[in-house]
């Protein structure tokens, strides 16, 4: 049997030590009428080569975006994953390690998390970051709950440019807490309508969520309303694309109290949408109200530098029903990948990456804009993702492009209804080149 080791000798020795005849006696407390006599209704085990064969066939039945010309985005992006990131993350010392509750034998994991917290803090310009959450959607849901708890208010404003998949998860978490969610419309340019936002700020508002760049790709100007939000007694919650923080102004610099985001692009594969990597950072004032694991630097009894999990009294294993969150894990190995990724790219590499995504996206946008019947939907500034208005149904465009081996983007009708059926969300990364752009343009507007 795979992975177990007892020889017949071992087994008999153990049964003898226990004074029993067979392992069956160990299950005597299970009601006999429910004890399974037969094996479960599933196939017998396969050998390793048989297993690999089966999964290779399954994998071959997929056409991965990473190997195609793909412009799919919407929170998950196809960036280059450095070989060194894969190498470190696959080491059993990181992959098979447990949660670092015993600090003395977990300094590797703890220091990696400390560096991760530092990287996230520097990207967001907020002093406190946790060891990660499941994904941006749940991180945002937790941030919303946090805002409600801290302010003791029960309304949260969400922009119409919020990722619809994140919005759905936020709704799930808020249902159980009687938190009302209200929407803030966008301006013509595609960013939040600041006047409409101000109109909605009242004493019941616990938090205002700003996604920048928004789901439609437009970069916000939160500094134009952050004071108004704070004056109203609410918290400002930023939802960010970490890659954009390579060049764009950071949430901490424009008054965000909490920042969350999807860090899958930082060294993670797309993995059909999971595992992902939620990041969360906040101001010093909020440190004890923030969910998730946190690592602190400290010293050991000999005075050596050492790291340890801290502020555990916030967590469920101590506070139980009074805990602010039920979260028990972080995305450990994904956070390890992101840490190595940012260390490897470093200041220069990461900034250049961001600049190249920006430049490439603008090159493509200009090329598409020049096509007959196609144009950019929004005038506002964008980073690496934008919405194209097509001359026909975007779903048809996507279908036709797929026939040519191009994954053109996400039709907005998928989330925003038939009124937006001609709109297509297009994302660009540093993996794209001009030839890819030409293929997309030909797919959108075939010549002849």
């Amino acid at each position: 049997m795979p992975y177990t080791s007892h020889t017949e000798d071992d087994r008999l020795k153990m049964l003898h030590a226990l004074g029993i005849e067979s392992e069956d006696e160990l299950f005597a407390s299970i009601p006999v009428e429910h004890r399974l006599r037969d094996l479960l209704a599933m196939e017998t085990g396969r050998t390793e080569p048989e297993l690999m064969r089966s999964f290779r066939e399954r994998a071959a039945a997929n056409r991965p975006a990473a190997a195609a010309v793909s412009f799919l985005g919407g929170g998950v992006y196809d960036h280059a994953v450095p070989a060194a990131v894969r190498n470190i993350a696959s080491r059993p010392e990181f992959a098979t390690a447990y949660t670092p509750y015993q600090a003395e034998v977990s300094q590797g994991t703890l220091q990696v998390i400390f560096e991760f917290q530092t990287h996230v803090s520097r990207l967001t310009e907020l002093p406190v970051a946790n060891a990660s959450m499941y994904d941006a959607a749940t991180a945002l849901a937790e941030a919303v709950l946090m805002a409600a708890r801290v302010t003791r208010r029960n309304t949260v404003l969400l922009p119409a440019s919020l990722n619809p998949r994140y919005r759905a998860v936020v709704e799930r978490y808020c249902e159980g807490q009687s938190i009302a969610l209200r929407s803030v419309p966008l301006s013509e340019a595609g960013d939040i309508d600041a006047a409409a936002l101000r109109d909605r700020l009242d004493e019941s508002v616990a938090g205002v969520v700003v996604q920048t760049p928004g789901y439609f790709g437009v970069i916000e100007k939160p500094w134009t309303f952050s004071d108004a939000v704070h004056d109203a007694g609410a918290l400002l919650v930023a939802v960010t694309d970490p890659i954009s923080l390579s060049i764009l102004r950071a949430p901490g610099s424009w008054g965000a109290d909490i920042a969350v985001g999807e860090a899958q692009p930082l060294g993670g594969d797309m993995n059909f949408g999971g595992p992902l990597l939620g990041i969360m950072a906040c101001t010093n004032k909020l440190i004890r109200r923030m969910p998730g694991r946190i690592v602190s630097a400290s010293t050991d009894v000999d005075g050596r530098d050492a790291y340890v999990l801290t502020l555990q009294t916030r967590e469920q294993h101590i506070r139980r029903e009074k805990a602010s969150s039920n979260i028990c894990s972080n995305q450990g190995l994904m956070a390890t990948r992101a840490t190595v990724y940012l260390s490897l790219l470093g200041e220069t590499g990461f900034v250049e990456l961001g600049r190249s995504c920006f430049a490439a996206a603008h090159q493509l946008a200009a090329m598409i804009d020049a096509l007959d019947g196609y144009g950019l939907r929004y005038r506002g500034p964008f980073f690496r993702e934008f919405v194209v208005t097509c001359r026909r149904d975007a779903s048809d465009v996507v279908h036709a492009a797929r026939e040519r081996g191009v994954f053109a983007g996400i039709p907005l009708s998928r989330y925003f209804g038939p009124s937006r059926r001609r709109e297509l969300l297009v994302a660009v990364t540093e993996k794209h080149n001009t030839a890819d752009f030409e293929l997309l343009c030909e797919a959108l507007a075939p010549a002849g």
Partner: protein
Amino acid sequence: MDQSNIRFTKDHEWIRVDGDSGEAVVGITDFAAGELGDIVFVELPDVGESVTAGETMGTIEAVKTVADVYAPASGKVVAVNEELEDAPDRVNASPFDEGWFVRVELSDPEQLDALMNAEAYRDMTGQS
């Protein structure tokens, strides 16, 4: 230390009336601080908030535990020990003095009559 004007709750809070001011100071006992271990954080009500006898008014945290702090008597919080934010260790070092939590304007001073005196508290905690 003269504990003749201090009363104690069964949850290990103490309350000491300040002369005729109508106000009293509240904290937790040395026994409680000893049981909890190194105090790392104390969460207290804000100035101006009302507290109700027997109901939680805050929490106190050690490294691996968190415990509720109950108001010994009802009233309005008129002062909070801000030093505890940066120096929670005061609670361990000086629980009856520098480690005080809040000062309360009592709404019903007679509530203190129902609480234990120092001797009864020592009996309860097996310290006598």
